[in-house]
């Protein structure tokens, strides 16, 4: 069947409808995924940044995954990175790249937690949310796993700008590329 015949028979319009539906579903799924991944990162980063810097450094030292000289710089800058990546994911700015960065952070968190549990280091609280939410390392591992899946899903969905997002606002309108 030629393209002309397909157009005549209405096959193409069904495909268009199907594509439109898939796109609509992608848009609908992307928002909750962005809110969950970005929201958790913003909350985690924010609660650590506003609390005493030493709190997170103490917890990081207790995990014994970093050389002592690295603990303070990592404890100081990592929460800001969470906050920044969380902000970009939440509002959909460079969504694909920020979702990859978020997924990388969730992989790092999970690796630290698995390593600490395997070595028998099991603090009362994972320290992920500063003085805010207190979750055990095991519960946090489950949360990180779920968020990692969402971040990877978002990476897949965000091949094109998904509205509503900052990316879609940037690409909308008659502006020059």
């Amino acid at each position, binding site marked *: 069947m030629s393209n002309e015949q397909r157009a005549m028979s209405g096959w193409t319009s069904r495909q268009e409808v199907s594509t439109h539906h898939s796109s609509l579903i992608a848009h609908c799924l992307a928002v909750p995924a962005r809110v969950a991944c970005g929201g958790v990162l913003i909350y985690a980063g924010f609660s650590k940044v506003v609390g*005493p810097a030493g*709190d997170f450094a*103490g917890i990081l030292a207790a995990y014994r995954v970093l050389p002592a000289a690295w603990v303070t710089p990592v404890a100081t800058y990592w929460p800001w990175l969470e906050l920044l990546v969380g902000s*970009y994911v939440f509002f959909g700015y460079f969504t694909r790249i920020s979702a990859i960065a978020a997924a990388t952070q969730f992989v790092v968190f999970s690796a630290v937690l698995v390593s600490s549990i395997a070595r028998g280091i099991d603090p009362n609280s994972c320290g992920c949310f500063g*003085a805010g939410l207190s979750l055990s390392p095991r519960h946090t591992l489950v949360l990180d796993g779920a968020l990692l899946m969402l971040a990877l899903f978002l990476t897949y969905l965000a091949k094109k700008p998904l509205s509503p997002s900052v990316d879609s606002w940037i690409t909308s309108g008659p502006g*020059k590329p």
Partner: protein
Amino acid sequence: MSRSTKRWVSGIVLTLWPLVAVYAVKQSNWGPILATPKTRQLGDPHARLVIVEYSDFQCPACARVQPTVHSFLELYKGRVRFAFKYYPLTQIHKNAINSAHAAQCATEQNQFWPYQDRLFDTQKQWETLANPTTNYLAIAQEVHLDLDRFTRCYEDPSSLGPIAQDQAEGKQRGIYSTPTFIIGDQRLVGNVFISDGARAIEKALRK
């Protein structure tokens, strides 16, 4: 507006709003000190710097740092405020919780500080006892507490509430040892307070 301008504007806004939000929160007076009653605070109530100590009355290191705490309060008079938080390490100290309970009963009669000083001074006398109630009553008498009221409070489990509250907060903050001092945004654990406390206070006061 061109796409490039939109991209720059969005980037700047999305990068700056967390900085502004964090600055606003840090300027406000949120923090653990709000949960500490005035009766467990020492020093100038308007002091800019707050030192929070998570402590356990049966912990030997907590007893050792007490003279340093008092000397710093004298040295930095008017510039620092000190807040005490209960953090009884119940897994390793059998009298940690009941000594905190006794101190809380002294708090209810506004005599926390003299009572805690005597608890630390006499720590070696009661730490191994199966029932140190007599020692706690003796200290209560020394610091002129109303003994009937003290006894009623000590027998009432509801007066353990503030201790549980401090413990929960300490766990959330990842406190794993005593004494832990929070000085501004720095944290000193154990005897380090004796050697590095002054430096940490000076640093916090300079900010």
